[in-house]
């Protein structure tokens, strides 16, 4: 057989392996919970991923083995050429799956991404060294307790909208810090952001300065623990999926379970080798909270922080692992928001 014909068969095989690869990666994404590969919108059941993958795989096999018998039963690519075509097709399918997943993530909203219903007033605050949004309850009758919300590095202030709305419904003010830019997370400058935000809250007449709490997400969780350790005025602290150790920011497949490939690259760039996590050293500062209440919340599916269990922390720390949720879903999940708000309210009220 002519070399040219063999190459033609190689191309046909490449097309088959590419289509089969698309299906294969969907099955892998569903089985391993890899968000960066999955074409299903966030929150969709894994079985849809299995179904889409299996259908693609079967269709590819039916097309190739059912209709290309002449190609199949002719001498085709030999072992090394076979591996070349198969590997390149699988890599092409992998890249395509990632791109499609990125597009789905951007254009198809997840079920829990429903617009947050604001329950009060909100105003943007621009101070010299920090900025944020102050959410105040709708009703009269302040001053209200207040919670300073600190987002994860790289996540926008809007990500805390659901939490702020949840607090507002329970008549708790919330000051959501905008720490989107990488500069805001430079150590030791970052340590100044929370004291300055708290000073702003104290000056606000609608806020009860005796009932202040902190809530942080991701690296924001590490920061609130560190800030509360040095400020006895803080009555209650919530850390949602804090990193606590530089090993939590190691690159690897676990990042793709939580975010898209591009987000993983960005996340890794922002965290670097985990220098800020190491310097904040929230774990070391836990004892300085003494008996002030601290709630740490993780998602059971969060592979970046899988090693943390209740026994990793002092007994005084309340530890909550939420079944079925990953890192990204925690701040949007209505049950997590509801239980966190109730916990904060209970401890802020108790201390007054």
């Amino acid at each position, binding site marked *: 057989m002519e070399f040219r014909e063999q190459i033609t068969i190689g191309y046909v*095989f490449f097309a*088959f*392996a590419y289509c*089969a690869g698309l299906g*294969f990666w969907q*099955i*892998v994404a569903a*089985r*391993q919970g*890899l968000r*960066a590969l999955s074409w299903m919108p966030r929150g969709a059941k894994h079985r849809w991923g299995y179904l889409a993958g299996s259908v693609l795989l079967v269709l590819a096999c039916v097309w*190739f*083995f059912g209709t290309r*018998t002449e190609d*199949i*039963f*002719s*001498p*085709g*690519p030999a*072992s*090394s050429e*076979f*591996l070349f075509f*198969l590997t390149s097709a*699988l890599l092409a399918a992998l890249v395509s799956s990632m791109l499609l997943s990125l597009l789905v993530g951007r254009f198809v909203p997840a079920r829990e991404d429903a617009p947050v219903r604001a329950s009060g007033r909100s105003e943007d605050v621009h101070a010299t060294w920090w900025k944020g949004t102050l959410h105040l309850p709708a009703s009269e009758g302040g001053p209200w307790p207040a919670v300073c919300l600190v987002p994860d590095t790289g996540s926008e202030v809007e990500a805390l909208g659901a939490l702020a709305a949840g607090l507002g419904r329970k008549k708790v003010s919330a000051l959501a810090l905008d720490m989107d830019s990488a500069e805001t997370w430079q150590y030791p400058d970052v340590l100044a952001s929370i004291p300055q935000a708290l000073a702003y809250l104290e000056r606000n007449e609608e806020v009860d300065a005796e009932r202040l709490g902190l809530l942080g997400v991701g690296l924001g969780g590490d920061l609130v623990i560190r800030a509360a350790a040095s400020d006895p005025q803080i009555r209650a602290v919530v850390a949602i999926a804090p990193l606590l150790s530089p090993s939590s920011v*190691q*690159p*690897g*497949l*676990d*990042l*793709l379970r939580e975010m898209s*490939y591009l987000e*993983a*690259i960005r996340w*890794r760039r922002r965290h670097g080798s985990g220098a800020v996590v190491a310097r904040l050293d929230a774990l070391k500062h836990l004892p300085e909270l003494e008996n002030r209440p601290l709630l740490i919340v993780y998602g059971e599916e969060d592979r970046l922080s*899988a090693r943390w269990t209740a026994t990793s922390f002092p007994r005084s720390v309340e530890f909550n692992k939420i079944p079925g949720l990953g890192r990204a879903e925690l701040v949007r999940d209505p049950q997590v928001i509801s239980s966190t708000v109730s916990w904060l309210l209970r401890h802020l009220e108790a201390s007054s």
Partner: protein
Amino acid sequence: MTVDAALFQLVNGFATRIPLLDGLMRLLVNDYLVPTTLCLLAAALWFSGATREERARNQRAVVSMVIAVLLANVLVKVCNLIYFRPRPFSVQEVKLLFYRPSDSSLPSNAGAVAFAFAGVGWQRSRRLGVLMGVLGTAFGFARIFCGVHYPLDIAAGVLVGLLSACVVGRAQRILEPLMAAFIAVGRRLYLA
């Protein structure tokens, strides 16, 4: 007639009798279905594992599979340089359900590759080893059924594949830097 030739005739004798069986064997015998399935199983193994440590063990197994398959291919080539055995259809009347390969019949490259996968798969997980072994056995049987190999060719191929897997299994310490490098590159690309 040798036992090998008698066995070949017995198996190949069933060809063209039952169309459904012929169809199944033609599906299994081709150069694409079983090798692609084995490669996909290896790729799936790369991504599996509940913890980072377990995944690293699986990834080491996948790198071992690649090395074992390469080694099996080299061994088959060396055997072909030393000894050439003609294909069954070149020396006797057979019911041929496949094209006419021109390389040496012994040892079977298909058997060697499939059992190199299966051998390493078995070292990592008994279930995976059995699954790959069943695929390899079906592949080998189909090659005899369709008239492209004698049973001894397949047996020799299986031996070469298992020997490669065994050598790679024993050389883990020597291969460790290579495996670690593969996994490190995978991690930097967020794929390991």
